[in-house]
């Protein structure tokens, strides 16, 4: 006889506000086999878990149903609690009445009814649950970091420090990411390159780190501890192992009219190029869209001047397959495209720039050698207007609903740097709010206002109009003084919102990880597991998870590394005991299951059977290797006799759920 306990969680008001939890507990107490049914405010808390544990001991329970949040959230918590109370952890079932009920429904009556049905289905299933014991699977002692910005570099360095091999896959020809483009960093105003480039070099020299630059992830298979990843090394038409990075080819290349991505298109580079002087790896790359040799077959100068013989116009994309135990995603961010913001005349006027473009304009290695000049006429600007929240905190479809977080601080930095270097320049900043949480951040902003006399004006810029005399007319409102302003600026700088890199979504699909509607990766728990994804073995580092400044990014990168190291130090991880098994008495030996198994977990053996008529027959039957089986269940449907079944999701369990729901 089954002795089942039902535990209904309020989740504070997350569940209890929409679902009458008492009624759920009361109704489920009348289900067959249920001998105890309770509700509690926070079932996942220690006292909530104790409630479950005590009930298991007191009532000698044979099954537990917890009506709470998603099993993806706390199934393990309750399984562990059951185990510590002496109940096999696989005798616990979760009814998801939060994500799939209270959070999506508003009507209390119907939400409660649905919660009861979901609870009944879980009770019906747990009746048929069998105790299971988990096996173990080995962990590949190698990590993959996707993205070679400061987040990826930091994660890789930390993992390497712990003695594990790490591969960095970076889609650009060099690692460094956005931080390499930045001039100075807030709130200390130290130079970004001075702190980043040593780390890039360190990464390239670390014996545990392999950098795959100009590469992408093309396929991910496997599971925690044992991922198989295919990396596409895009053809750069230069042999990485031969190129010495001397740069002679880039000097001699006749095609010099290629917009320079690294300088945000503010100047040009050659068709064969090294993105910047401190690039890692310092290897040239040919841009086949511009290279004369690739386009017309006439030129070949780089090949002639390269003493190392590194140029290879016929190079093909290469695919490398590698096994990893852990994967860290560090795909970072980009400023949004401003095509839809014609009111700021971004596409109409070269002197309206984004903040990242301003970084390059002010950078000593930038297009003007560090002298701030207007892109249009290379004159010194005397009046600069900064516009905040361009596309951030936007409730229309043009922009992003979230705060991009970094813009307030970098704008204060820009304003301060300009005032410091060019005291004759007036600087205006139009803002909605100035947000400066962070160590020494508010002090920094106040210095900009108080010491450097930057004009901070609360209000939005309505229209930016380039004038024929080269000035830019900025129409804005000052909300505090309640007046309309016209400023004849020389330059306008837009603090464009940031968004996740475009490669993130296809990557999330390959990794089977969650993303939010803005394409930021979703962490496993917003408070408690901020650097793990919900998919085991996949960790999140940096701005791919949400907007972040450099200190936060580095902190999260190291945290992700720590989590990955925590996985890699294990020799094996407990595997999923929910694997397929074959009832040999019913197996026909037809091989259907073997054909559909993606893991090759099924083999056939000839086995002796004592038949009912007392004869002995040798029959061919399927045998599942539980260490290899991952529990997808493809075989269970391929099997016509129903001999193949899946632990934890058996035919009868699922049918019991169907029946309970359809009753």
């Amino acid at each position, binding site marked *: 006889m089954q002795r089942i306990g039902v535990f209904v969680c309020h989740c504070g008001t997350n569940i209890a506000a929409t679902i009458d939890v008492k009624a759920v507990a009361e109704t489920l107490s009348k289900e067959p086999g249920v001998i105890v049914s309770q509700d509690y405010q926070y079932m996942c808390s220690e006292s909530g878990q104790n409630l479950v544990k005590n009930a298991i001991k007191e009532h000698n329970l044979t099954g537990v149903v917890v009506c709470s949040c*998603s099993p993806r959230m706390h199934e393990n918590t309750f399984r562990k609690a059951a185990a510590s109370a002496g109940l096999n952890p696989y005798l616990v079932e979760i009814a*998801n009445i939060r994500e799939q009920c209270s959070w*999506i*429904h508003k009507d209390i009556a119907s939400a409660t009814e649905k919660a009861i049905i979901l609870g009944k289905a879980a009770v019906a299933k747990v009746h048929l649950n069998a105790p299971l014991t988990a096996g173990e699977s080995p962990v590949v002692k190698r990590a993959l970091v996707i993205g070679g910005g400061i987040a990826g570099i930091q994660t890789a360095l930390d993992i390497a420090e712990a003695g594990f091999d790490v591969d960095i896959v970076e889609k650009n020809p060099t690692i460094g990411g956005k931080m390499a483009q930045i001039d100075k960093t807030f709130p200390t105003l130290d130079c970004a390159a001075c702190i980043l480039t040593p780390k890039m070099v360190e990464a390239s020299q670390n014996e545990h780190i392999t950098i795959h630059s100009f590469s992408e992830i093309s396929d991910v298979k496997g599971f925690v501890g044992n991922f198989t990843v295919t990396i596409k090394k895009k053809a750069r038409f230069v042999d990485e192992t031969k190129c010495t990075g001397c740069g002679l080819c880039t000097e001699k290349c006749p095609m010099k009219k290629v917009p320079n991505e690294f300088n945000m298109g503010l100047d040009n580079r050659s068709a064969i190029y090294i993105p910047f002087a401190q690039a890692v790896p310092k290897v040239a790359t040919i841009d086949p869209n511009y290279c004369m040799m690739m386009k017309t077959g006439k030129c070949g100068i780089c090949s002639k001047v390269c003493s190392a013989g590194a140029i290879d116009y016929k190079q093909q994309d290469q695919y490398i397959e590698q096994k990893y135990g852990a994967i860290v995603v560090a795909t970072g961010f980009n400023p949004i495209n401003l095509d839809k913001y014609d009111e700021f005349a971004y596409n109409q006027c070269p002197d309206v720039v984004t903040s990242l473009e301003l970084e390059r304009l002010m950078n000593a290695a930038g297009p003007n050698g560090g002298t701030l000049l207007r892109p249009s006429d290379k004159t010194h600007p005397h009046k600069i207007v900064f516009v905040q929240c361009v596309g951030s905190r936007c409730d229309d479809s043009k922009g992003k609903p979230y705060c991009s977080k970094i813009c307030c601080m970098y704008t204060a930095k820009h304003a301060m740097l300009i005032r410091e270097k060019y005291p004759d320049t007036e600087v205006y900043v139009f803002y909605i709010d100035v947000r400066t949480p962070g160590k020494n951040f508010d002090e920094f902003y106040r210095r900009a206002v108080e010491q450097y006399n930057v004009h901070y004006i609360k209000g939005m810029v309505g229209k930016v109009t380039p004038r024929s005399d080269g000035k830019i007319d900025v129409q804005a409102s000052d909300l505090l003084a309640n007046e309309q302003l016209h400023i004849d600026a020389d330059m306008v700088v837009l603090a464009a919102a940031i968004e996740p890199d475009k490669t993130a979504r296809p990557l999330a699909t390959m990794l*089977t990880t969650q*993303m939010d509607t803005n*394409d930021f990766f979703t962490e496993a728990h917003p408070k408690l597991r901020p650097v793990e994804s919900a998919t085991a073995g996949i960790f999140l580092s940096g701005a791919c998870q949400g907007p972040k400044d450099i200190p936060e990014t580095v902190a999260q990168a190291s945290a992700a590394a720590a989590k990955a190291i925590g996985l890699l130090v294990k020799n094996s991880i407990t595997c999923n005991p929910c694997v397929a098994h074959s009832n040999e008495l019913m197996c026909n030996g037809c091989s259907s299951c073997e054909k559909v198994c993606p893991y090759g977990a099924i083999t056939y053996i000839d086995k002796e059977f004592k038949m009912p008529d007392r004869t002995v027959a040798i029959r061919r039957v399927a045998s599942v290797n539980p260490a290899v089986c991952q529990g*997808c269940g493809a075989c269970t449907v391929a099997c016509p006799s129903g001999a193949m079944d899946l632990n934890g999701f058996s035919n009868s369990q699922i*049918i019991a759920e169907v*029946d309970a729901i359809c009753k």
Partner: protein
Amino acid sequence: MQVNENKEFQPLIVAFCCNWCSYAGADLAGTNRLNYPDNIKIIRVPCSCRVNPMFILRAFQRGADGVILCGCHPGDCHYTSGNYFTRRRMTLLFSMLDFLGIERNRTRVEWVSAAEGAKFAATMNEFTEAVKKLGPNRRLEDLRCRKQ
């Protein structure tokens, strides 16, 4: 299931969701508070390829008005290839049900990733509407199971 006061037909819909993509997508819809009708009752399976045609027919037999099967997008199956088998199996099964004269809009396969909470909610809204239009399932149910 009759809960609405105004007696509008409320279909019962069983949704089989794979643990890795669609169930996570459903959770995401919840986390983002994206509403979809309470007609939808989700059953979690490890992979869409775990769904046996028997489960679908059983649901109809016991009075479900619609069955939707959600899995990872083709090529993204957590188990590499499970959803490709699902696709063939369900194409043939649905074609057979259609052949037997069962209204074809009562069955559906949708690929919903873990990141597509909004798609999950939209799909469920749309599917519920489609089944509502068809009215109660009379062609597949077992009369003994009909509620008095």
